[in-house]
């Protein structure tokens, strides 16, 4: 089935490229209606060609179906961590832990953007944080604080006793000066409202 999935990816990429090339060819008069007609008659010409077209159609349907299964399967495969209580089982979606980390990191003004990825493995819970920071941040101090906050928040809110490994990947550092300059430029460009200052009490 894996072969079909790979074929599916190539198939969709190929179809999209073909459509693009077809449009370009049409705009340059490289593809004429006679060419399309010729192809159509060639396919209908003899029983062997007809069978080839039929089998190609069937193969395309199988590839498409397999590809759809792959995409839907990935969407549905929701990973969780679970524990049992007296009344039944409680499962927590890993995406819920990701939400929790996002909220917990909001208290740190140095963080501009954060995208967490949580994996549950035999070693414990592995949290990978991709962070975009503001330039004035002290990296060793900030990352240590972020690790501490994330770990304590997960333990506090979810009551998890497993080991929590937190990996931080700093993907971007944004300069505040640059951002302020851009904002000032934007304000300069804004047209002023005539008599805007009048009439205020």
């Amino acid at each position, binding site marked *: 089935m894996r072969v079909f999935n790979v074929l599916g990816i190539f198939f969709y990429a190929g179809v999209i490229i073909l459509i693009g090339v077809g449009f370009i060819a049409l705009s340059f008069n490289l593809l004429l209606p006679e060419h399309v007609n010729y192809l159509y008659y060639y396919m209908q010409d003899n029983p062997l060609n007809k069978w080839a077209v039929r089998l190609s159609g069937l193969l395309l349907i199988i590839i498409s179906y397999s590809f759809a299964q792959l995409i839907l399967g990935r969407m549905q495969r929701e990973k*969780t961590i679970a524990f049992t209580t007296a*009344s039944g*089982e*409680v*499962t*927590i979606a890993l995406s*819920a832990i990701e*939400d929790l980390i996002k909220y917990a990191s909001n208290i740190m003004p140095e963080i501009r953007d954060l995208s967490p990825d949580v994996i549950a493995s035999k070693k414990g819970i592995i949290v990978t944080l991709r962070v975009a920071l503001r330039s004035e941040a002290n990296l060793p101090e900030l990352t240590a604080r972020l690790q501490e906050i994330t770990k304590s928040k997960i333990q506090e809110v*979810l009551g998890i006793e497993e080991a929590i490994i937190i990996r931080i990947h700093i993907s971007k550092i944004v300069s505040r000066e640059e951002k302020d300059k851009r904002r000032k430029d934007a304000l300069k460009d804004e047209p002023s409202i005539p008599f805007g200052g009048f009439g205020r009490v």
Partner: protein
Amino acid sequence: MVFGDEVQSNLGCIKIYKSAIAAVAAIAAMEVEGVKSVSRGAVIRFLELMGAKITKIRIEIDHNSNVSIEVPLIVKYGYHVPEVANKVQENIRQAVEKSTNLSVKNVDISIKSIERSG
């Protein structure tokens, strides 16, 4: 609609739908502090807008009339999740047993998301 259980009284039989049990469970879950909502997918929300009454709470009833309930939840940020889950399980058990006289075997909770209140 799927029948949940049938109870025989002096005057006739009383049929309890699974959807009725699910509704009781949903109300009981929402009563617990820290629960933001009973999670529903986009398709279900759309069908509800069209007027259909659907809950994503799963109800299973075995031949001994024991009920198993599976509830997807969204919890408010800042609450201790296991504590909220425990309270929900207890509240649902009590509410379903009180309303339907059926015995609740287990209440499984799945936390789908954590969201800020408001």
